[in-house]
C-alpha cells in the first residue's frame, strides 16, 4: 500500500469480480426503467444519428474536441471534485509540460508522445515540491486563499517560462499529427483520437483508483469530510499530498499530448484552466463521469454550432447558455429532491 492509513482499512476485494459486473449492468438496466432516463437516452441516440447523417465530421471532430476538454478537465476534477482543492495554475502546469516535451524533442529528438512517461514522473515530483512549498500551508485555512495562491503560482510558472524560453509561440512540426483517413469520400483527421484514448485510460484508471484501492477510498472520505476522515485515522495530509501530486502529474503529462497539436506559448494554459473549471462545475463536483459527459455534450454542441456557417459567431453564447442552463437545471433537481 502506498499510504499508511492507520486503523482505517475498509474490507475490500481489490480485483473486479464477475458479480460486480453483473450488479453494474443491473444498475444500468434499472436506470432504463425510469421514464425520464429512457426518454433522454432515446433523444441522445436520435440526435447522434441525425448529426451523423447531416454532418459526419461533427461526430468525429466533436468527439475529438470533447475528448481534449475532458482530458484536461479530469485532473482538475480529481483535485477539485474529490478533495476540494482549487488549483488556478492548472493550465499553466499543462503549459510547462508541453514546453518540457518541446525541448526534449528539440534537444534529444524525443517524440512528444514518448515524453509523456518522463513527464508523468517529473511532474509527480514537481507536484510534491509545489505542494510542500505552497499549498500545504493554505489547505484547511481560508479556502478562498487557494484562488490567490493558484493565480500567483500560475503567474510564476508562465512568467518563468517567458524568462527561460521567451514568449514566442512554438510548435513542433510532427508529420503524424495531420494524418487522416478517408471513408467513402469523407476525410477526417485520425491523430486526435489519441485524446479519446487518453481520456478513457485516465478515466478508467482514476475510477479504479478511487473505487478499488484503500487510498482512493480514503481520498473520497477526505473529500467528503476532512475532519471525520482524520478521526477515523486517515492521514489527511498524505492524501492531500498524493492527490495533488497525482493531479499535477496527470496534467503535466497531458501537456506533451496537447503540444503535439496546438501551438504553445506561456499564456496558453489559462483558457484551459477556465474551461476545466466550468466542466467540473457542470459535470458535478466529485463525479468524474459527469465531467466527461459534460465535456462530451458541450464539445459536441460547440462543434455542431461551429459547423453551420451563419451561426458560428454565436457558438460562444450557446456554449455559455448551455452551461448556465445545465447548472440551473441541476440545482432545480436538487431542490425538488
Amino acid at each position: 500500500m502506498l499510504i499508511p492509513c492507520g486503523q482505517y482499512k475498509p474490507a475490500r476485494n481489490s480485483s473486479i469480480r464477475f458479480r460486480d459486473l453483473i450488479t453494474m449492468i443491473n444498475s444500468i438496466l434499472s436506470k432504463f426503467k425510469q421514464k425520464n432516463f429512457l426518454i433522454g437516452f432515446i433523444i441522445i441516440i436520435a440526435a447522434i444519428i441525425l448529426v451523423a447523417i447531416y454532418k459526419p465530421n461533427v461526430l468525429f471532430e466533436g468527439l475529438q474536441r470533447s475528448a481534449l476538454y475532458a482530458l484536461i478537465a479530469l485532473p482538475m476534477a480529481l483535485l477539485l471534485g474529490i478533495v476540494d482543492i482549487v488549483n488556478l495554475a492548472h493550465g499553466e502546469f499543462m503549459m510547462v509540460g508541453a514546453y518540457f516535451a518541446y525541448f526534449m524533442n528539440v534537444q534529444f529528438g524525443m517524440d512528444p508522445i514518448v515524453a509523456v512517461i518522463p513527464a508523468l514522473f517529473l511532474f509527480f515530483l514537481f507536484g510534491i515540491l509545489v505542494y510542500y512549498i505552497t499549498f500545504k500551508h493554505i489547505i484547511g485555512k481560508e479556502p478562498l486563499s487557494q484562488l490567490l495562491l493558484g493565480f500567483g503560482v500560475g503567474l510564476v510558472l508562465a512568467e518563468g517560462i517567458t524568462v527561460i524560453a521567451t514568449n514566442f509561440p512554438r510548435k513542433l512540426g510532427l508529420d503524424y499529427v495531420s494524418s487522416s483517413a478517408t471513408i467513402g469520400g469523407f476525410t477526417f483527421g485520425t491523430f486526435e483520437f489519441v485524446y479519446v484514448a487518453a481520456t478513457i485510460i485516465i478515466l478508467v484508471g482514476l475510477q479504479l483508483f478511487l473505487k478499488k484501492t484503500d487510498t482512493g477510498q480514503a481520498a473520497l472520505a477526505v473529500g467528503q469530510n476532512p475532519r471525520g476522515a482524520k478521526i477515523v485515522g486517515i492521514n489527511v495530509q498524505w492524501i492531500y499530498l498524493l492527490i495533488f501530486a497525482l493531479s499535477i502529474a496527470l496534467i503535466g503529462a497531458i501537456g506533451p499530448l496537447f503540444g503535439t497539436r496546438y501551438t504553445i506559448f506561456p499564456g496558453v494554459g489559462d483558457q484551459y484552466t477556465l474551461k476545466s473549471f466550468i466542466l467540473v462545475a457542470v459535470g458535478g463536483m466529485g463525479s468524474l463521469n459527469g465531467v466527461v459527459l459534460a465535456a462530451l455534450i458541450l464539445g459536441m454542441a460547440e462543434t455542431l454550432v461551429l459547423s453551420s456557417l451563419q451561426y458560428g459567431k454565436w457558438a460562444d453564447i450557446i456554449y455559455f447558455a448551455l452551461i448556465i442552463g445545465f447548472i440551473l437545471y441541476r440545482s432545480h433537481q436538487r431542490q425538488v429532491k
Partner: protein
Amino acid sequence: MKYWKYLICAVLLIVAVSLPKFIGVYPLQMANIILIYMALALSWDMLLRTGQLSFGIAGFFGLGGYATMLTSTYFGFNPLLSLMAAAITAGLVAALVGYSVLRLRALYFAIVTLALGEIFRVIAQNLEITGGTEGMLLKQTMFKGDAASTYWVMLAIGVLTIIISIIFQKTRIHYASTSIRNDEIVAASSGVNIFKYLVIIFAVTSAIQGLVGGAYVQLYGFVEPTATTFSINFVLMPITMALLGGLYTTWGPVIGAVLLSVIAESLKLRIPYGHLLVYGIIMVVGILWFPGGIMGFIKKMFKISNQ
C-alpha cells in the same frame, strides 16, 4: 477614541481631495487605476460577505462601460449622467438575472456569473449598434481628460464605494450577510429573507461595478469587447487584491488594491522584461505569510497585544 476615527477619516479625505495640488498628472493617473481596482475589489468583497463568490465582475464592468458609451454616443448624455446610466443598467440587469442565478451557491454561482459575463461580451461583440469587435470611440472623454477633475470623479466613486461598504458593515445588512455566509439554515430560521438580501446586495455591488466600468470608458474613451472591456483581468486582479488585503472588511480590499497596484507599477518601471515573475512571487509569498490577508494579520496582532 471614537472621535479619533472620524478625525483621521476627515484628514485622509482632505488629503485625498487636495492631492491634485501636490502631485503631478502621472501619480493622479495611477491613483485613478488604484481607485478603479479598489472599487471593484471592495464591491466583490461586499457580495462575498454573503458567501457568494462572483466571477462576474468583468461582465458587469463591461456592461456599465457599454451603457456609458451607448448613452453618450446615441443620446448625447453628459458624462456624469452616462455614469448614472451605467450604474442603473448594471444594477437592473443584476437584479433581473439574480432572480434565477442567486439560487445557486459556491462554485456553481461563480461559474454561472463567469458565463454571464462571457454572454454579455459575445452580445457586445456581435451587435452592430455596439460597434462589433472593433468597439467604439467616445467623442470626448469627461472633462476633456483634465487630470484633477477626472481624479475627483474617480475619488468620488471610490469614496462612495467605501461608504456603501461601511454602511453594509454597520447596518442590518451586515447581520444578514454574515448569517447567510455562516449558516443559511440558521439565517432563514431566524427570519432572514435570504433571497431578498442576496438580490439587493448583488444588484448594489453590480451597480458599483457597472459604475466603475462606465468611469473606465469615460477615462480612456473607448470600448473594445475582446481584449479590454470584458478582460478577465477585471476578475482576477480585484479578487487577488481583496484576498491579499483581507476578506470581509472594508479596509482589506482597499489596502490590497493600493499595495498591489503600486508594486505592479514600480516593478514595471524597474524591470521592463519579466516584472510579472517578481509580481507572481510577491503574491505567493504574500498569501503564504498572511493566509487571512493583511487585515487578518493586523487583527490578529491586535488580539495578541490586547491579551
